[in-house]
């Protein structure tokens, strides 16, 4: 039955009042949405199914819209390179001559670095796997700075992965679906990234504000920063690995230190997503899960406490004692076990004897 034919059909309500009531109801719903929003957290549940669905739908649509723009840009580049080839050639030759000097210096430094690492027994981090993606949509407003990339969970991307382009850090992944992921840029107002000043190691938090140059907050130390200082990620908190290039420090018009992002200096079409979850993945899990452990040795109280310590330093250990128990051939404990507390009087043992049961430090030549 139509409403107008019902008992309430003759009810006359001013349209302005009903519109006002509708407005208030809609506003209450909007406030509820705003209060329930948790997009700034790194939790996957905070992203929500609705956002994931919209991202999945938006990816092909935005990709199709972005394609003509990309082709036009490529066309302009082609035409420009055709007309400016000679100029480009001169510039590249100059750059090449300069780069050759840098190459020689880099090779020398690399060699020196390798030697230092070897001397110090330093363990460097293994390379982190990456996934490449193309940006299909880009929001640049004051209240949201995000990008939509056309790679998602099928490439192993998870929430929290850092995102770079060829120049530097761009942001981090805040939402993932199949085939698409949402990247929160460093410039977004919800973005907080632990960074450090490369020159002084001074720590700070890079805070986005919707503008092109994010702020450096909580900067500590005496004279920690200068104009043009290079800013890199500090790795504090374990969200991003240490040492990723971020930008150069500049003093803003408001007197605060800000960062000119390296990532802004290049094209925004392609990005690389580091499949970095936390520092645990940087350790070699196979090594950690070794099933054969070195033999456990207990100290002989007779020799260590009750006996008189040897007066002179022990001679070099005999040859058989220097062989380390390897993981492949564990030495039976009986062979190396110290003698039990026996009734016979304790005799001073050579100091090198217990060494036979211990594995040598890593990197010791056999």
């Amino acid at each position, binding site marked *: 039955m139509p409403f107008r034919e019902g008992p309430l059909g003759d009810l006359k309500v001013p349209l302005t009042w009903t519109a006002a009531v509708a407005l208030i*109801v*809609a506003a209450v*719903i909007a406030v509820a949405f705003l209060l329930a929003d948790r997009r700034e957290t790194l939790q996957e549940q905070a992203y929500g199914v609705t956002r994931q669905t919209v991202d999945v739908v938006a990816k092909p649509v935005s990709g199709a819209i*972005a394609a003509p723009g990309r082709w036009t840009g490529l066309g302009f580049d082609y035409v420009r390179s055709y007309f400016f080839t000679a100029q480009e050639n001169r510039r590249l030759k100059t750059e090449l001559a300069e780069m050759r000097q840098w190459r020689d210096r880099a090779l020398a430094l690399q060699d020196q670095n390798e030697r230092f690492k070897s001397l110090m027994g330093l363990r460097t981090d293994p390379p982190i796997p990456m996934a490449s993606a193309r940006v299909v949509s880009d929001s640049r*407003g004051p*209240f949201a700075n995000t990008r939509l990339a056309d790679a998602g969970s099928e490439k192993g991307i998870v929430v929290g992965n850092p995102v770079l382009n060829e120049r530097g850090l761009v942001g981090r992944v805040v939402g993932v679906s199949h085939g698409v992921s949402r990247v*929160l840029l460093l410039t977004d107002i919800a973005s907080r990234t632990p960074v450090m000043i490369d020159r002084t190691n001074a720590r700070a938090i890079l805070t986005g504000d*919707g503008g092109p140059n994010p702020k450096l907050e909580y900067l500590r130390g005496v004279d920690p920063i200068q104009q043009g200082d290079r800013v890199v990620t500090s790795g504090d908190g374990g969200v991003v690995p240490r040492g990723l290039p971020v930008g150069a420090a500049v003093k803003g018009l408001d007197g605060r230190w800000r960062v000119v992002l390296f990532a802004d200096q290049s094209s925004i079409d392609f990005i690389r997503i580091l499949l970095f979850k936390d520092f645990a993945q940087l350790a070699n899990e196979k090594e950690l899960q070794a099933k054969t452990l070195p033999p456990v040795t207990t100290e002989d109280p007779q020799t260590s406490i009750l006996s008189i310590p040897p007066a002179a330093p022990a001679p070099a250990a005999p040859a058989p004692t220097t062989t380390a128990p390897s993981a492949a051939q564990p030495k039976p404990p009986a062979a190396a076990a110290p003698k039990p507390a026996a009734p016979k009087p304790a005799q001073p043992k050579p100091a090198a004897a217990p060494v036979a049961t211990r594995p040598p430090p890593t990197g010791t030549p056999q």
Partner: protein
Amino acid sequence: MSMSGGRALNPGRWLGVPMLLCIVATILFAAPIRIWGLQLPEPVFAMVPAFAWAMIRPSILAPFALLILGLFLDIFWGGPTGLWGLSLLVAYAMVLILRNAMTGQSRPMMWAWFAGVTAVTMVAGFLFTMLDSLAMPSLLAVFWQFLVTALLFPFAHRLVDRFEDADVRFR
């Protein structure tokens, strides 16, 4: 005389079509295009219906249509959910309250009103973001978005002109 002159206005025409056009325009302007190092501007196209719908007539459906548009903007742009919905409703409420003062004014004056309403909306968005993120957005970025949004008045004027007199019950 248009065909709709003799009957009530179809909500699909004055609410549905502008809403769809706003969504399409928003998606178009989100393309990652850079020309000579400059990105495309990001105007809030939804300000056009927020202003025009309140000017055309009071309606029960319009606030909910704006809420949906706002939620779309939040999700598509990756912002906090509810931010633009609430900000657009502030704009709608303001125009609804002041529509008697605005109606019948000249085009430049209406443009000034549109810029004023847009400014109030941006300030509302600024305050809501401050409360939600506990941080202050860049005033310069807010100003740029206000500027490019204020340039959209011709579209709002056309929408008002098209439907202001279309419903016989409001003549």
